């Protein structure tokens, strides 16, 4: 056995790595697909070639994202069996069905219509062709529902019983699994975050486009507007859904909530909000913090009064509740610092996105249109292309780490879920290969996206050619 880390640690690392990497591309694909669908719809409505060119140009970014999303998604379909076989045995009766439905309902739709959409621009009338991108988008959105249904069960099991013979989970009500309240706060949050992601990426890349060349000003200003609208609406709705989710987990997973706010001892009533805090996980205390009075009560209960339970109290409650089944040695404290800061990054991304997109829309409105001249602002927007990924990653860290020590809340621990047959050696091998592979895929994806941006859209042939384009395209080269 290769030392340093246990099978459990390595398996958890692998799950985190593959899922976080996959989830860069999920919201990006859902978001950019929507942006492309909207652009193509505007083209169908207005018949302006600019919008067709926009749909095709951003379509390239969408396709790059989709390609990496698809191949990393295959890992997801199999890794539960590979690394978490005891989990699969325990949860199979519930977990498999949403996964299979996801494939049947969503993946086929996505993959078929994206293939049609890509290759039939000349074949169908614009009004028909646009349907294919909408169906692609619908497919990816439906897929999110089903995978989140599976995730929601792990957060908040519903519609099941424990099979006395095998000790495994057994389905009692499929409706209850689908109607899981966790799902219906989680799904909107994720979908709106995806719209935010697509919008911010289109906006940020357009800003870089505007910085690079004055000639494509019209193209990139219009693109920036579409992106900004999406990101503005996306961020406001994400925040609204996040607020619902926050108030939901206070009751459902109080430990997770207390950790995101770094609260060890029960708060006073009314509760102040710790904007930043120095947390000491060893002594289980908050060394110092910057407090904003009343705000936590407002955030938690939408009222100026009400206290929040601290982790120490919750820890005792959890021991009282679960010790009979899982023993007294369980550690119910979640990784507090990670959750605390992830939450601040995530929420910060939401607020910052809303602010930036508001300004972008303000300055690009038809009467004023000075966005392209504010280079400092374009730089900020450009860098913020990467911002949403910080938010979504932070969000998943909260959701998944905050469920510690459970893989299925209250039913199975992470330690019990892992495959008994995999070895540390195998996991080192697969982790390293995945890591290298992801670096290459991510690097190439970003590189090609940037290069696509630098070449710019094909729109407007009257413009002077960039020197960059002298190299041309390999395909044109060997066809000549």
């Amino acid at each position: 056995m290769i030392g340093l880390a246990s099978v459990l640690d390595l398996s958890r690392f692998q799950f985190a790595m593959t899922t976080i990497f996959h989830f860069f591309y999920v919201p990006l694909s859902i978001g950019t697909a929507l942006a492309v669908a909207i652009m193509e719809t505007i083209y169908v409505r207005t018949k302006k070639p600019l919008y067709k060119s926009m749909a095709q140009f951003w379509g390239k970014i969408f396709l790059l994202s989709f390609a990496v999303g698809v191949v990393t998604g295959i890992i997801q379909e199999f890794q539960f069996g590979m690394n978490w076989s005891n989990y699969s045995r325990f949860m199979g009766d519930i977990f498999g069905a949403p996964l299979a439905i996801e494939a049947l309902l969503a993946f086929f739709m996505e993959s078929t219509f994206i293939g049609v959409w890509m290759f039939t621009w000349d074949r169908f009338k614009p009004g028909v062709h646009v349907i294919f991108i909408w169906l692609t988008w619908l497919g990816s959105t439906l897929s999110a529902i089903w995978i989140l249904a599976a995730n929601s069960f792990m957060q908040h099991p519903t519609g099941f019983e424990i099979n006395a013979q095998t000790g495994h989970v057994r389905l009692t009500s499929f409706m209850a699994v689908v109607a899981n309240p966790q799902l219906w706060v989680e799904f909107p949050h994720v979908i709106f975050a995806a719209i935010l992601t697509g919008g911010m990426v289109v906006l940020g890349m357009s800003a870089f486009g505007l910085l690079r060349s004055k000639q494509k000003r019209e193209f990139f200003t219009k693109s920036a507007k579409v992106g900004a609208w999406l990101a503005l609406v996306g961020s406001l709705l994400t925040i609204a859904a996040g607020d619902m989710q926050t108030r939901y987990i206070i009751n459902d997973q109080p430990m997770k909530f207390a950790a995101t706010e770094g609260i060890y001892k029960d708060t006073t009533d009314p509760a102040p909000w710790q904007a930043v805090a120095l947390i000491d996980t060893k002594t289980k205390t908050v060394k110092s913090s910057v407090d904003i009075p009343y705000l936590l009560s407002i955030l938690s209960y939408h009222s100026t009064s009400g206290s929040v339970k601290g982790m120490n109290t919750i820890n005792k409650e959890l021991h009282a509740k679960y010790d009979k089944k899982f023993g007294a040695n369980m550690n119910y404290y979640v990784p507090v610092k990670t959750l605390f800061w992830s939450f601040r990054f995530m929420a910060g991304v939401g607020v910052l996105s809303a602010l930036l997109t508001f300004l972008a829309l303000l300055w690009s409105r038809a009467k004023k249109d000075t966005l392209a001249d504010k280079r400092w602002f374009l730089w900020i927007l450009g860098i913020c292309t990467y911002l949403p990924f910080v938010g979504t990653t932070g969000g998943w860290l909260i959701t998944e780490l905050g469920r510690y020590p459970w893989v299925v809340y209250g039913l199975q621990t992470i330690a019990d879920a892992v495959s008994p047959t995999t070895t540390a050696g195998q996991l080192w091998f697969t982790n390293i290969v995945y890591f290298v592979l992801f670096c290459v895929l991510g690097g190439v994806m970003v590189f090609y996206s940037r290069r696509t941006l630098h070449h710019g859209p094909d729109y407007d042939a009257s413009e002077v050619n960039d020197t960059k384009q002298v190299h041309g395209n390999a395909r044109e080269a060997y066809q000549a």
Partner: protein
Amino acid sequence: MTILQLLWYGVIALLFAIFLFLDGFDFGVGMATRLVAQTPAERQLYMRAIGPHWDGNEVWLITAGGAMFASFPLWYASLFSGYYILLFLTLVALILRGVSFEFSAHAETPRELAVWQWANFCGSLLAPFFLGMMLTSMIQGVPMDAQGNIWAGFWQVCNWLSIVGGVATVYFSFLHGLHFLSLKLPAVDARKMLHVSSKVYWIAYPALIVFVLLAIFQTDFYTARPLSTWLITVIILAATICGHWAAAHVRGGIAFISTGVTLAGVIAFIFNGLFPRVLIGVPAKNSLLIQNASASPKTLTIMTIVLVCLLPIVLIYFIWSYWIQRKRISSSDIQGENGY
């Protein structure tokens, strides 16, 4: 064993068979980009032939995996954790193959293009190899404990039968890909494909005989279920002869169907032989059975309803997407990125 369990065993078999039928030719086309095509432009043309379809074809594997999880969770858990490294290698191959389409459309220098075309070739070659290995290693019986964990050592995974099984899957996928190309490429190239195929076909006969001999000694298929096993063997052989004849007589359509039947036949062979087990354990009492590996009746019922409602719709637009793109392609189709 209930009707629903039986049904879902059949559904899983069907999903794998459709997957191999469809993605089989994608793999074959990928192999042909090195083994037949001479220039980067030709390679791009071959890849364009499957460009709109490969992803949808791969979804059949995803669906098979998901359906297996839903209907036989214990099988899903044991098989994929037990064949950890082989499955991992299959996934890596599928990843390389998968990104190569999009990335090669963005390549600008000959070297960049070559990288992604090699990725496509290697992925297309290795994915069916590892998958074939996994399926044929599994049927020989693997060390299992009472909890259903597979403790397969190197030689259980990598042995004569599994290697021949892997090679055979690769080989028939290659032929299948040639036949698909013969239906999609301009007439001149199409004839070339069938010409190559009719030459390569000769290896099929010794390969099949070796496979059957190994299977007779290494599995209990021919003694446990002799009649159906022999029947499937004969069908595979007949499809091979038929495909060979068709390739030699420039009948691409028949050749394509024949190699497809051969590939689907391999799945039928395996699932027929496994029955009523899903994993053959050593010792035999630890085998996983259809009866005890399945999900609850309730889950199976729901999945059946879902399948009956959704599959016909999927099939309609899936087939439609092939139908509207049935025309032969030519080099003028690959101007511009991503088909625009």
